[in-house]
């Protein structure tokens, strides 16, 4: 296997006396989905914040492409090609699909005071990118984002991040607020992005969703890595047990 795109080595982070992360290791490979599982308060958010440059680790090393790095800010992390899709997806309901897609990176044409938005190419590219993600119901780039479903907004956010150069995508609970049908759309999006060679970190507390699409799994419990395994190594039941509290599961006689 190639080198991981991003690697956390024994990363710890404390807030005052409170140790939120305790010597956590994590490898993310291009073209792979790394599922980060854990209950509320297990340290998932702290880990994402470290990976996306919001926080720096108290101890431990973050490597990108094998090189040790320190992200000074989310912008800095974005510069490395790390995209984060937050729970609220970062969309703006009352502006159009293409205006959302290009927010902060608007294409312009013309010169000097006549420099203006290139609506035609913005609309065309935004639609192309979203439809390439398998979203067929969006067929009008002028449509307000507020009219899109939760899954479609995820598609917008993911295709946007990839279009603007993300090589590693961190998806924070993308299926948390969605129904069965919409979750399926998001799972499909994740596999599409993986097929394009993107490295993905999929944060969830839904074991079913994780097992559907994950290649590598890390279960966090109270800031520590409770388990680290590959696809097919554990059943859904085992994963659920792990998430509920690894010790009990170990005590229940998991021999090896």
């Amino acid at each position, binding site marked *: 296997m190639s080198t991981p795109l991003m690697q956390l080595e024994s990363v710890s982070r404390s807030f005052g006396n409170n140790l939120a992360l305790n010597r956590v290791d994590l490898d993310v490979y291009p073209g792979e989905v790394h599922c980060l599982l854990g209950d509320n308060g297990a340290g998932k958010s702290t880990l994402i914040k470290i990976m996306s440059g919001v926080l720096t680790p108290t101890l431990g090393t973050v490597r990108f492409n094998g090189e040790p790095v320190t992200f000074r800010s*989310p*912008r800095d992390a974005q510069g490395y090609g790390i995209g984060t899709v*937050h729970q*609220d997806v*970062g*969309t*703006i*309901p*009352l*502006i159009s699909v293409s*205006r959302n897609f*290009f*927010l*902060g*990176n*608007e294409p*312009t044409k013309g010169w000097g005071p006549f*420099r*203006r*938005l290139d609506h035609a190419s913005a609309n065309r590219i935004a639609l192309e990118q979203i439809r390439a993600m398998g979203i*067929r*119901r969006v*067929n*009008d780039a*002028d*449509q*307000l984002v*507020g*009219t*899109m*479903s939760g899954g479609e907004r995820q598609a917008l956010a993911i295709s946007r991040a990839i279009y603007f150069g993300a090589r590693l995508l961190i998806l924070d609970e993308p299926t948390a607020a969605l129904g069965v049908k919409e979750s399926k759309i998001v799972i499909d999006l994740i596999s599409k992005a993986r097929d394009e060679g993107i490295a993905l970190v999929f944060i969830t507390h839904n074991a079913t969703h994780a097992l559907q699409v994950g290649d590598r799994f890390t279960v966090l419990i109270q800031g520590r890595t409770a388990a680290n395994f590959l696809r097919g190594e554990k059943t859904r039941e085992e994963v659920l047990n792990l998430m509920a509290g690894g010790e009990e599961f170990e005590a229940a006689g998991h021999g090896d």
Partner: protein
Amino acid sequence: MAAMEQTLETPATPRASLVERMLQVAWIGPAIAAVIIYIFFGIVGGASGFLTVAGTAGWLNTAAELGIIAIPIGLLMISGEFDLSTGSVVGASAIIVALGSGFYGLPVAYTFTLALALGVAVGCFNAFLVNWTKLPSFIVTLATNFILAGTSLGLSRLISGSSNVSFKDAGWAEPILASKWNYFNVSVLWWVFAALLAAWVLRQTRFGNWILATGGNADAARRAGVPVSRVKLILFIWTAVSASFVGIMSAVMYNQGNAAQGQGYVFQTAIAAVIGGVLLQGGFGSVTGIVLGCVIYGIVSLGLFYTGWPTDWLQTFIGALLVLAVLTNNIIRNAALSRGARRK
């Protein structure tokens, strides 16, 4: 492959219907309202001259002076902020010009610049307080309005012994700021210019996209790299400078400056923007809508005069209109957003 793409695309839902598309147009509500109100006053006030050139000029002039400030106010509201300090900026700018050029006899170019500089300073001050203290702009700019109103009144009386200073001849500035064609003031042209500029910015520039995004979801906009604080700073300056301009214009037009004038703009401009379909929560609105909001305000103010009814009722009428506008805005916004949900 192409055939397969075809079969995949055909089941996609048809493009939005005409009604659905119209609901997306931010100014559809105010446009309908303007037509209805115009027809109403045409019928009731037509006989006494509402429909004549003089009548038309009357409401257009009112709409223009209001609009020059209401347009940037509307943009500011789309970005999610308020500015209630425009009234004092109008008064302060008028008194600066009247004191400087009328009382001390300084060249108008000098006093105009001074008044516009005051606008820039007030805009910076408002933006600074809003951006750094995170206090609601409603209260911050209300405070600015009082501070500035008191100061200009106090200084004016201290210097000239009166709050009202006459200003006879503006020289080269007369034709630009105070000329008339028929009954139409030149301010109508300035209003058209302000509207075209704002419409261009909002629809056709990156900055316009940032205005909408800042008001729609400031956190998301910030994460996408939009300089949210700078967007607000520019809009606060734009608004205050526009208010200075109206103050200068009124000093030239009425040959006097009054430190206490202009307070009507404080709420009228915000009312015109809301009647024009700008959402109070920010994130939605159009320049065409704001222009129509000013037109509606102008028609109602002048139209009531032509009906022969006591004009005491003007504020009642405007208040009722405002409630209706806010309700309609919410309905239109919800309808625009439910479009996708219904087709699911």
